[in-house]
């Protein structure tokens, strides 16, 4: 669970621009921020009947604070309560300023990201000073209330909170020669819904299909293969329902997908064969069928164990300890891979495929991938809950090291079970984003993007 701490980074503007064009937040018109503002304004209006009302919002991101404050004030004015924004470095001073400005009441709100929701908490207090009380800053008895509101964070809100990179993390500050690694800037991660798909996502892959320098997202679901842009817009679809079924049906929907040389290779375990698809002109075209399961971005291939959710690999390709659910690859200075075995165990292979050995992992779940969260060129391991149907799904990100240390980052996933994960470059930064496919109880799924935000 992340604390409501985040910094403001410059690239937020770019991200914000990208994300503002993204798929709208679920349900209501207006984004999370607007919803929050409406809620708060409603609460405030319910507690007091007289204006003018001052609003002070603090949050990790001044942009967010100002946006929220503006919206709340506007709503209050619309309700005839005369809203005005108070700018102050902290809540205590805000009260003094509000009193000075002659507001009758002040709403002080602290907004932040809480478990995937944009939450605001604060209080409402009266600031009108009785003439007879003189200069003592007594407070009138009314209004006095606690304010609390939350709204589901959408990409827009996230963008407002996002921390653009100000400087590379491991920058050497030359002072007297030699390099001293700068203390790493604090990084937090946050999630947002990128897209919603009508059926369960079985596998995710990312790669640049249209050679624009930014990855497209490939999602293999129970009914189709979908290619989406970095903003979540659907670019192409291929319906797979009519493809011939495998001879031994597989109960647990599982697939493997990879972008290999600009083409989409996937194999649904419930089907008889996989396919290699080429994307072009807004459509997916079948290049050929695949007999083997494409793994590790095409480096190796395997065969599905008939009737089960495991894929086996021949020893000469990779000397695996046994069949596994999925294999995640990271290609950097070194090629690393993490395989997820049944029972929540895994294997982190440094130098894939290597001789077959690796570091044993435990307690890892289906949504496991290697991605460079902080842009330092080395992969971090992201994994989800190893429980089958956890009460709260969570994402844990570990830095490379002996297994057993606690995760460096943790994030709660509010809805559904994460069953697929892939690393992607959705922007032109060095750091990667993580894509998560979650299954919802009603049979649909959501595609989440995990990115880092300023603390």
């Amino acid at each position, binding site marked *: 669970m992340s604390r409501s701490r985040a910094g403001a980074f410059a690239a937020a503007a770019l991200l914000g621009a990208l994300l503002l064009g993204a798929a709208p937040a679920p349900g209501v018109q207006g984004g999370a921020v607007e919803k929050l503002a409406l809620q708060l304004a409603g609460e405030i209006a319910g507690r007091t009947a007289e204006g003018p009302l001052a609003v002070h919002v603090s949050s990790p991101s001044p942009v967010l604070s100002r946006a929220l404050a503006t919206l709340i004030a506007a709503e209050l004015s619309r309700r005839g309560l005369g809203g005005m924004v108070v700018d102050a470095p902290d809540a205590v001073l805000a009260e003094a300023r509000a009193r000075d400005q002659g507001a009758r009441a002040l709403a002080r709100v602290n907004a932040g990201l809480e478990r995937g929701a944009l939450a605001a908490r604060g209080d409402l207090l009266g600031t009108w000073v009785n003439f007879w009380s003189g200069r003592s800053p007594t407070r009138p008895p009314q209004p006095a209330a606690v304010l609390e509101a939350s709204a589901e964070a959408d990409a827009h809100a996230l963008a407002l909170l996002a921390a653009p990179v100000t400087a590379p993390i491991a920058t050497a500050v030359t002072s007297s020669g030699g390099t001293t690694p700068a203390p790493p800037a604090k990084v937090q991660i946050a999630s947002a819904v990128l897209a919603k798909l009508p059926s369960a996502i079985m596998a995710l892959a990312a790669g640049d299909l249209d050679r624009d320098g930014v990855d497209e997202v490939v999602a293999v679901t129970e009914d189709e293969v979908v290619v989406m842009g970095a903003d979540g817009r659907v670019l192409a679809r291929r319906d797979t329902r009519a493809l011939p079924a495998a001879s*031994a049906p597989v109960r647990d929907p599982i697939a493997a997908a990879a972008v290999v040389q600009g083409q989409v290779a996937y194999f649904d375990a419930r089907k008889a064969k996989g396919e290699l698809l080429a994307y072009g002109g807004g459509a997916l075209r079948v290049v050929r069928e695949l007999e083997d399961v494409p793994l590790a971005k095409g480096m190796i291939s395997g065969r599905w164990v008939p009737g089960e959710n495991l894929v086996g690999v021949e020893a000469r390709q990779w000397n695996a300890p046994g069949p596994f659910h999925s294999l995640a690859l990271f290609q950097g200075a070194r090629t690393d891979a993490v395989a997820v075995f*049944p029972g929540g*165990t895994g294997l982190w292979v440094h130098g894939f495929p290597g001789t077959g050995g690796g570091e044993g992992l*435990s*307690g890892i779940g289906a949504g496991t991938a290697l991605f460079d969260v902080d842009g330092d060129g080395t992969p971090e391991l992201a994994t989800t809950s190893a429980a089958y149907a956890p009460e709260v799904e969570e994402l844990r990100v570990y830095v490379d090291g002996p297994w057993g240390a606690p995760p460096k980052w943790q994030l709660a996933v509010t809805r559904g079970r994460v069953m697929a994960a892939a690393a992607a470059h959705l922007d032109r930064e060095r750091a990667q984003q993580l894509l998560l496919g979650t299954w919802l109880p*009603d049979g649909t799924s959501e595609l989440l993007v995990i990115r880092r935000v300023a603390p």
Partner: protein
Amino acid sequence: MNARALAVVLLLGSTVAGAAGRPRYGGTLRIALASPAAQAELLNVDRPETAALAALVAPPLCRLDPQRGVIPTTAELTHPQPNRVQLLVRAGGPRRAADLAARWNSLSQPGAFSPYRALLAPLRGVTATATTIDAALAFPWPDLDRSLCHPALGLADGGPYTGPTSRVPFSANPTFPEGRPFPDRLQLTTGDERRVARSFATRQVDLLFGAAPDDAQPSPAPQTPALFATYLVYRSAHAGAELRTVLEQSVDAQDLVQRFVTAPAVPMTQLLPPALMGAAAATPAAFSGPAPRAPGRELTLVYDAALDEHRAVAERIQVRLHDRGYRVALKPVPRAELASRWASGDFDLLLQSLLLPPAPAAALAVAIELAGRHDLLAVELTALGAVADAAARDARARERAAALRASLPLLPLYARAPQVSASSNIQGLRTDAFGLPMLDQLFLTQD
């Protein structure tokens, strides 16, 4: 277990013990069923404890997921034309659709105990090829899709598990259309309540059906829909019109549920269980009938000899009616005889439980059929089927249920859901819209 031992696996106190994000294949699923009955009763769809087990061997045509709706598992229903339906059967032997049609046909025979034939009432002219069944609809019936997921209408074999119905383990069926179940084998033991509860407590079995786990706390109220309804069916011709009045006045469903039905149950004030009646269940129908004359009748109450629960209820009814001057003889009979007696009308009072479908209109049809009023079926179902909107149809069905409560020769008693306890190494256990645990979805986590 099909995973070879990992070369280097350090289980260093992971935060979550043992389980995988994905289900694991393999293992033996051990189930204990509290039932002294013989093996033949294991495929009894009318009883909460055995209906889920029956579904493992004789699978229903589809699964009704509470959130996702109808999921075709062994068969798929399509509507090629507005009043024609076609069912494509995917599991079972080479002549599966013909066998299924024959099974449906045998349900419709006059001598069979099959109130569930009401679910097939709209179908006319059922013809079958080897893999498909075609039929016409006599009247529109939108609930047909959901009704066909009823376990009683399913296939005779080709389920997720196969094997003879004896104590030897059942094996996973690799050709099941949804995919083989995760455990390799299923092992079933039966016994009396205390013994199976003990074996569950000592972790000798993974799932416990029909008994509360062996601890001193009372069982929690069921959160799954209680759709196994128990009714007291009576023959007005035999027993007289005032019998209904006496039954209404003397048999208190709340009292039965509190004191005499040991498994978790909810009393039924209306014709359909509270899970189907919704808000209307709260208001018990007022009943007024002919005042009872001088007593002195002798009646016989027939019930299933293998069910302890029904025995306790029957004894209570006997006592209550005795206080009102009726001499009631209890006659426990085997299930087959109970069925034939119901079918031939050879009873005064008969205690029967059955599984109602989760759609109020279809459940009403089954209740009317149980009461033996085939004449009402056509009228009521046509009227209900004409309502296209699901919510309106449900509301209309509830109204009709409330209206018919007093006139059908049925006294609704209580409704139950299956009593299932799972040990901690069971994962993925969910219940479907019938209230049955979907046993083919679960998997084992322990080595």
